[in-house]
């Protein structure tokens, strides 16, 4: 790479800066975004229902749980870790809330708070195991995943809990300015996470940590505390996704969320994050989420066998990673 001569004023340095910014933007966006646009165009030709407002809002509703979990997962993956427990945390948090409410007649807001707190605490456990106890995140969260799905089944002996308060189930039926509440929550979570990642020192530190943990540590960052914090966020967001599932279905299934794990990681990877850490963004993750959501919705509309759908998702993952690598 050729070296630019020392640039005298600020003016000279803004031009390459702008260009570099464009290059950077064009580097981040194209792969996933172009893929999304192609998929949108293809499905709009294949199905007349696809491009209706109602269907598009449906897509957003269908992806809200996976989308919220994907935010936590993306943060963990940017630091170079992985959280396998998100789906199981969703289940156990929701079951705890339902169980406390039904079997102990605890006021629902308190039960819900307990469920969210449990999610954060499991995240704390994940973080402590992955940092202070020096267990590889894959192994640590595999263990908590196993434990959480067991507990989710155990507390009600495997039976689902139904009958939440009406105001709770009404939440996911609520529309504000025509947009469902869970979609607003989803988008808000992405915006807050994006702001944190871009502008707050601790959020920006995630990239430093994932890029080279030793450099980050020697630069005075409290690497372990930041990592633990990220797992806590992931656990909390999984529990929040659990509450949305409960409200939407008006029931708590002990096996809810278990099949979501692979979709969550797929979203993050299609969104351009590397499992090696140090890269990924909320914009990318959101586009990855839309790709998964649109693919699932569109394939159902045109009657692709549900058994074949995961094959297409698998192909999408490979395609996304290959094009992403070419762009770099």
């Amino acid at each position, binding site marked *: 790479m050729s*070296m630019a001569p020392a640039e005298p004023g600020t003016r000279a*340095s803004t031009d390459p800066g702008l260009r570099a910014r464009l290059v950077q933007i064009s580097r981040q966006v194209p792969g996933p975004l172009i893929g999304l646009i192609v998929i949108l165009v293809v499905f709009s030709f294949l199905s007349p229902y696809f491009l209706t407002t109602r269907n598009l809002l449906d897509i957003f509703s269908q992806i809200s749980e996976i989308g919220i979990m994907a935010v936590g997962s993306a943060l963990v993956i940017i630091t170079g870790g992985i959280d396998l427990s998100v789906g199981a945390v969703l289940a156990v948090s929701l079951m705890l809330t339902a169980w406390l409410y039904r079997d102990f007649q605890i006021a629902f807001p308190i039960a819900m708070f307990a469920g969210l707190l449990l999610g954060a605490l499991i995240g704390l456990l994940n973080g402590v195991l992955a940092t202070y106890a020096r267990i590889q995140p894959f192994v640590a969260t595999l263990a908590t995943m196993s434990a959480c799905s067991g507990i989710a089944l155990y507390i009600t002996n495997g039976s689902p809990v139904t009958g939440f308060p009406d105001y709770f189930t009404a939440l996911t039926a609520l529309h504000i300015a025509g947009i469902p509440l869970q979609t607003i929550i989803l988008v808000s979570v992405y915006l807050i996470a994006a702001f944190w990642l871009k*502008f*707050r020192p601790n959020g920006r*530190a995630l990239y430093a940590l994932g890029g080279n943990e*030793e450099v980050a*540590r020697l630069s*005075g960052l*409290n690497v372990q505390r930041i990592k633990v914090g990220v797992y806590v966020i992931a656990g909390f967001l999984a529990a929040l996704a659990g509450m949305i599932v409960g409200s939407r279905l008006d029931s708590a299934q002990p096996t809810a969320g278990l099949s979501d794990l692979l979709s969550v990681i797929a979203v993050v990877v299609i969104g351009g994050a590397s499992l090696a850490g140090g890269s990924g963004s909320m914009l990318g993750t959101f586009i990855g989420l839309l790709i998964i959501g649109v693919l699932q919705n569109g394939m159902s509309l045109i009657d692709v066998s549900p058994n074949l759908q995961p094959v297409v998702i698998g192909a999408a993952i490979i395609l996304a990673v290959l094009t992403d690598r070419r762009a770099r």
Partner: protein
Amino acid sequence: MTPSSEAGLHCRGVGKRYGGTHALKSVDLDLPPGSVLALVGENGAGKSTLNSIIAGVVRPDDGEMTLDGVPYHPASPSEALHQGVALIHQEIRLLPELTVAENIFLGRLPVASGRIDRARMAREAGVVLDKLGVAVDPQRKVAGLSMAVQQGIEIAKAIIRRPRYVIFDEPTASLGGAEADRILEQVRALRDAGTGIIYVSHRLDEVMKIADRVICLRDGALVAGWERGHFTQQDIINAMVGREFTFEHRAPPPRGDRVVLQLDGVTRTGVFRDISFELARGEILGFAGLIGAGRTEVVRAIAGMDRFDQGEIKVDGKPVRYTSPSGAIEAGIFMVPEDRKGQGLNLGRTAAENITLPWEKRLTRNGMITRAVVAETGLRQKQRFDIRGRLDLPVSSMSGGNQQKVLLAKWLVEDPAVFIIDEPTRGVDVGAKMAIYEIIRTLAANGIAVIVVSSELEEVLGLCHRVLVMSKGNQRGILSREDATPARVMSLAVGA
């Protein structure tokens, strides 16, 4: 000149360039069978390059080699081994979960009727280990064996193929006295069996004991050679360092004598012992010593990167106790680590992002770090340190010298009380080197206390007010500018 057609390993005019660096300049070498040739020289004198060429690890740019009268141009280590030349590395590279015999036969496990012939492997390994006097069961795993035994296994691994020439690269660097003697016996046993041996060591007492001939490299050139019985340790030391100093970078004498940093008996068990010194405002203290003497470990402890077990560190007279780099940074102690890629810079991120990384919490505006803040800070440091290259591209796109400047700039966004630089000019060109010396001098002139750790004697002697010399984890002495002659520093460093 053509190499000799006689028996033995002969090199004539062997040279090697790495980019602009002339690592090895037309070196001649003769190693008859059944003799020990000791190779000495400072860090970076070209010993490793010469060894690597002979062992087929790198190819020379010029020169000829013959092996027992036959032209010898190995293209790879395995080709060298095939022709009878083995290199025993300084670091132990055994696989801990395999058995001793498996390690010795790795890559050529004997097979009988489709299965690994374990009995034969154990038997043959046992014979070689016995010959070397290494008492270990060939069938046990390597994990848990002492360093000395592992080094013995490394030697067994090399000689099981019956090489006629063996290069030992600092085989005793990590061993104690009795264990090192053991290695010397093994070397003698090989020599008596007719093997020609090149022996690299910083331990001059060993060299005195074992060498039939000693040659000394300096700055890539052969500067001296002696036959057994015709030299003293002092001769070797003089030859190793005996260069004219071509430049002086010394900062003005310290202004005032207010002590900023004080170490009192700082010890980390098994790594370094009883380090004590005072450092004043505006003073530059050099850390000299051979690789592995414990210099880096001491400064890492000062900078909170590693723990220490005993002793006390005081900053401005007050004892400090921090357990992380962030604690040291709070106390005003900033350190530039030696490993630029592994510890200093995040190569995939931009130069500006690297520069602001330690300071983001202090640089926020309305709680936010914006791209503008990062760019401004980067630009300010770029101008201050004359960094050439784009701040908004990954720092890996810059030259080594500019990367090093980025690393310095990163740690000088705020003024430290104590600035520690480990190997300030490793892998940078001469121009950047001079610029970095100038930066260090300016820091001292502004009252910052500086510690410079360097393996380049010239750098330490030219730049520092005082020089602390370490050897094998011990502080051997602190020399004032007047007393710090190359020979004195080297005498302390080799423990003579």
